[in-house]
């Protein structure tokens, strides 16, 4: 199971890398979103995907899954949420101000 998830997250990373290296700004942002999915999957996998009950004490199970990675992922999800929201707004503002989403046209700062 771990191997499968690792491969999946590897696929996500390669897709994200491809998107981030592209010329359009919105594709870059999509790439960063996919990248964060890959990281979250990886954290979950590295905590171990052993069988066990959900980490709720009411379950009365003999073993539970590791609760720590889940807390880490939860924290990291909200952070990447915030960053992505800021990034999208920034991209929108740049698009209205500069008039392009082509990253090649956004190079240098000679016009000021």
């Amino acid at each position, binding site marked *: 199971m771990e191997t499968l998830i690792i491969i999946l997250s590897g696929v996500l990373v390669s897709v994200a890398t491809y998107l*981030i290296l592209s010329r359009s700004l919105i594709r870059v942002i999509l790439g960063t979103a996919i990248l*964060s999915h890959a990281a979250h999957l990886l*954290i979950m996998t*590295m905590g*171990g995907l052993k069988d066990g009950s959900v980490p709720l004490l009411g379950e009365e199970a003999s073993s539970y899954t590791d609760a720590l990675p889940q807390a880490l992922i939860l924290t*990291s999800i909200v952070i990447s949420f915030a960053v992505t929201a*800021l990034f999208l707004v920034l991209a929108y503002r740049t698009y209205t101000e500069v008039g392009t989403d082509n990253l090649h046209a*956004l190079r240098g700062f000679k016009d*000021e």
Partner: protein
Amino acid sequence: MNNIIVLPMVIPVLIGIILIFLGPYTKAQRWISLGVMVANAGISIYILNRIQTEGILRLDFGGWTPPFGILFVADSFSMILVLTTSIVTSVCLIYSFFSIGKAHETMFFYSFVNFLVAGVNGSFLTGDLFNLYVCFEIMLLASYVLIALGGRKVQLKESIKYVAINVLSSWFFLVAIAYLYGTVGTLNMAHLSERIAEAGQTPLLTVISILFLTVFGLKSGLLLYFWLPGSYSAPPTAVAALFGALLTKVGIYAMFRVFTLLFYHETSITHTIIGVLAGLTLIGGSIGALAYKDIRQIVSYNVVIAVGFILVGLAVATPEAIEGSIYYLMHDMIVKALLFLLAGTMIYLTGTANIDYMSGLIRNYPLLGWMFFIVMMSLAGIPPLSGFIGKVLVGQGAADAGSYILLALAFISSIFVLYSLLRVFLSCFWGETIISVEDEVPLKKGMLVPCVLLTLVTIGLGLGAESLAPYVSDAANTLLNPDVYIDAVLND
């Protein structure tokens, strides 16, 4: 009461939140945020003195003993940096009172400065790896806003790149944490250090350490500094000074912490890589500092050179070199803030950033000119000023460790620093004046006073190095003997 060590992070967070409600009252915002930074400086001096008598202090949040809870650990190294951060931020705040403008001030500028400082102080104080990641993000989110606030075209363009590169490096950080957790199964730094020592730093752990090196290299501009000159040129002067003084230094701090506390077993691999990267950074930064005529670019590349220089100290890792790096880190935070402020003032006075179009400023603004002269001497490491002691100790350490190439690169880079700034000084301050008496922009006292304050601090740091010596040697001692740190955290 150890609760006091949480204050350098908690006060700025709370005050930042309160300042949101004080939107239109800029006077109140100014005084409150300046008060916070001065109070922080006082608190950190108090903690620093307590550490000398009582050893490393720690605070377990919620009473959960390590390694199960998050904790803050205050040793001399982190408190020295918190103190320097408070001083630099206070001065940058005073500068921003007179330069940043009404539009910024009503748009929560001071809140974001407070959040930035909270993130920086949190990163210095935390004893938990994931908490370090969170503090990094607090700092970075505040810096994203500060770089884009104002919304000029150049700021938007540069902030896009800055955000993209930092999202990427945060991703690397998460991946490194995931691998490390998967390998050793803990996140508390002292506990991690113990477990890594038990495992003897297997090749897998060395790979993870190189992943951490990539992360902090991106944050601090160690070789991966391609994003830095652009991003540091875009924001207003006060913000650029804060960035130049604080942001890269947090990456350097994290690198010191990780490579002296956690991954210190395979120095022939990791520290050699750090040494090579530091050498390349020194070369690249020197080339950049000479290549441009835009004063903001010159100043930004000087930040890069300093990063390389400080990490030479980590790469050779002898006691002298580490002490030298700590001295140089303090010196560099103060002097880089001063350099950015002076450069920004020159741009404000002349209306151009190109050094070819500035000339003879010393006739109109003598004090500014001589302060630039002092900062140049200080950065180059001329004896009575603060850069000297750090450079000597790093050089001595490199000579002791036999890394003569790094030694040569580090000192040749000093000549390049001197040359690049001397070029600015000769071209902008000497020569025929281009500003006639009628066109002369009056230099506001409020812009001059912060620069004078920082100049006094750099002179004082140079002359008073002796009185700082016990703190610095204690900091270096903790860095070189991870057992001191581990004992303070785990065996109480």
